[in-house]
């Protein structure tokens, strides 16, 4: 095989304790009536204090499941975390008791969800829902919790916050509801904020406002953020690094600029080429052929091989390792360097 013209070295393991949050070789499967779906197959990524990591992928790629595994809110069963580590400040969350994990939720790592209308409880006023976290986690009095709730709602720029405490989720617009979710997640000053497709359910103009808000809050409150999305456009202005997921694996991992300039995995390349660009006239938009894999029957070798324009026999036979391309970039592709060179051209 001639694919080893360049000699990429295998990724070296990250040194112990260096990162704020680190996922190591996580495997999660779902047991259903029809069989076992292997949703996460060895995901590793890390997050340092103060940075924003974007996790990119199609629905079903396992990006949300990884986040829920970090939070410890997967429904088990059907989900089952088979192996791996989730290190927060060097301690493995997966080895902790439910009570210890509960303490981490909200206070250390908080999460906001895609559809705020269903993610908020329909029968309680928003003020009550935000205040509940303060009252039951911090032991605040009703009055203190109320005052702090107004502060939080001001912080996420909800107009006339004090007068809206008693309103119910369905009385807010989509953007305002998402702000309520964010205020709720910020209540306990978490160090890590996981935003799971925070703008997918919103209008385009509102999307931008929410992304700006998240970026500002991350900076002002000195949090680290994991931004889960399927939208490359959302990522560009906000993220420091991007991890691209496919079939429950990280296929490419790079800083934003390198990745946009020259993707090193055919899947990322396909994703980028399917975005219309304003600066190129008359270009033909390409699409990635084929369908996302069935997680009960993941293809052999590289799971992307049935859809890949670079496919060779080795892709069908051998699972590609993460190959380091320099600048800490990795790509799980046998032909990473070729793809990267191709893209840079």
């Amino acid at each position, binding site marked *: 095989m001639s694919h080893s013209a360049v000699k990429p070295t295998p990724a070296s393991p990250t040194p112990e304790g260096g990162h704020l949050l680190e996922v190591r070789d996580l495997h999660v499967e779902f047991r259903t009536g029809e069989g076992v779906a292997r949703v996460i197959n060895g995901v590793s990524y890390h997050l340092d204090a103060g940075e924003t990591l974007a996790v990119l992928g199609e629905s079903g790629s396992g990006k949300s499941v990884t986040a829920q595994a970090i939070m410890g809110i997967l429904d088990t069963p059907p989900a089952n975390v088979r192996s791996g580590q989730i290190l927060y400040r060097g301690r493995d969350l997966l080895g902790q008791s439910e009570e210890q994990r*509960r*303490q981490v939720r909200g206070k250390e790592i908080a999460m906001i*969800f895609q559809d705020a209308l*269903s*993610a908020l409880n*329909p029968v309680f006023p928003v003020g009550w829902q935000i205040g509940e976290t303060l009252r039951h*986690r911090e032991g605040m009095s009703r009055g203190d919790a109320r005052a702090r709730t107004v502060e939080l709602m001001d912080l996420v720029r909800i107009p006339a916050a004090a007068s809206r405490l008693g309103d119910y989720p*369905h009385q807010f617009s989509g953007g305002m509801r998402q702000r309520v979710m964010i205020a709720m997640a910020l209540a306990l000053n978490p160090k890590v904020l996981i935003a799971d497709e925070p703008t997918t359910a919103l209008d385009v103009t509102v999307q931008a406002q929410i992304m700006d808000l998240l970026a500002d809050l991350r900076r002002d409150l000195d949090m680290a953020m994991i931004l889960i999305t399927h939208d490359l456009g959302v990522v560009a202005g906000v993220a420091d690094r991007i991890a691209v997921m496919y079939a429950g694996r990280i296929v490419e991992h790079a800083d934003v600029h390198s990745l946009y300039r020259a993707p090193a995995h055919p899947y990322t390349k396909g994703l980028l080429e399917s975005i219309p660009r304003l600066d190129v006239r008359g270009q033909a938009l390409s699409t990635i052929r084929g369908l996302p894999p069935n997680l009960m029957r993941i293809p052999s070798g590289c799971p992307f091989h049935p859809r890949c324009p670079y496919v060779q026999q080795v892709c069908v036979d051998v699972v590609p390792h993460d190959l380091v391309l320099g600048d800490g970039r990795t790509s799980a592709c046998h032909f990473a360097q070729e793809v990267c060179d191709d893209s840079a051209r």
Partner: protein
Amino acid sequence: MLRFILRRLLQMVLAFFGTTLIVYALMFAGQGDPIQALAGERPVTAAQRAYLTEKYHLDATGVGGFFYRYFDYLKNLLQGDLGQSLTGRQIGDILAAAWPVTVKLALIAMAVTIVIGVTAGVIAGIRRGSIFDNATLVLTLLVLGIPTIVLAPLAQYLLGVKWQLFPPTAGANPDLYALLLPGIVLGSLSLATALRLTRTSVAENLRADYVRTARSKGLVKRRIVGVHVLRNSLIPVITFLGVEMGNLMSGAIITEGVFNIPGIGFNLFRGIRTEDGPLVVGIVSVLVVVYLVSNLVVDVLYAVLDPRIRYE
């Protein structure tokens, strides 16, 4: 909220006129001899005939006459004057004596429903697929499938006559103990329905997105289930219980009849048996009103419980 109640109130008034008109028309319109129709196969004395003719204005004829008589009946109904039964007693008096018993019985049935039905439903909903869950599903199906006319006499025979755990019949002034068995029999159907409804509702709400949010807030499980899930899943259950309270008060005909409990249902049962038309019409009219009012209360209750309805 106020507008919602007013609108429902208006609907109720319309439904009241509609239903009473139907009841009245069916009882009196197009009969060759309305008095004989009231009395069924019983012979009617001249005195009774004169009383009924005057009471229901049967001497007025035609469509105009019908509506004249209908509004007269309505007026009397609203004034609480239900007239006399064929036995000569004031129907109002009969009902006044019967209400407390029926309400007591309905409350026992309701207590049984809530204590056993809702509690077991919550447990079954949380432990969906468990042995407890499957057992309650089969048991409730059995209860739902066994008609009251089977359940009541058999319970009376086995628990009252054969094993003598309960008094088989209640008698004129039943105490709480005498009402217990009939209350359980009466409540069993509501219990089964409430259990299944609660189970489904809890199971559905446990999978709702807001539960995931509550977990990510780091709340303890007891609070997530006990406050977030329960508050949502009990909305349909409480609504059902409200409707059921109306049903229990009007639907105790069989149970009160079998156990000889001198409540509303028993009097209706006896009215039917003795072909006492005025008594049946009087009681049915009152029960229809009870039913309509309880439905209104339930709708208002629903609006209070579910903010999404309240602000529509």
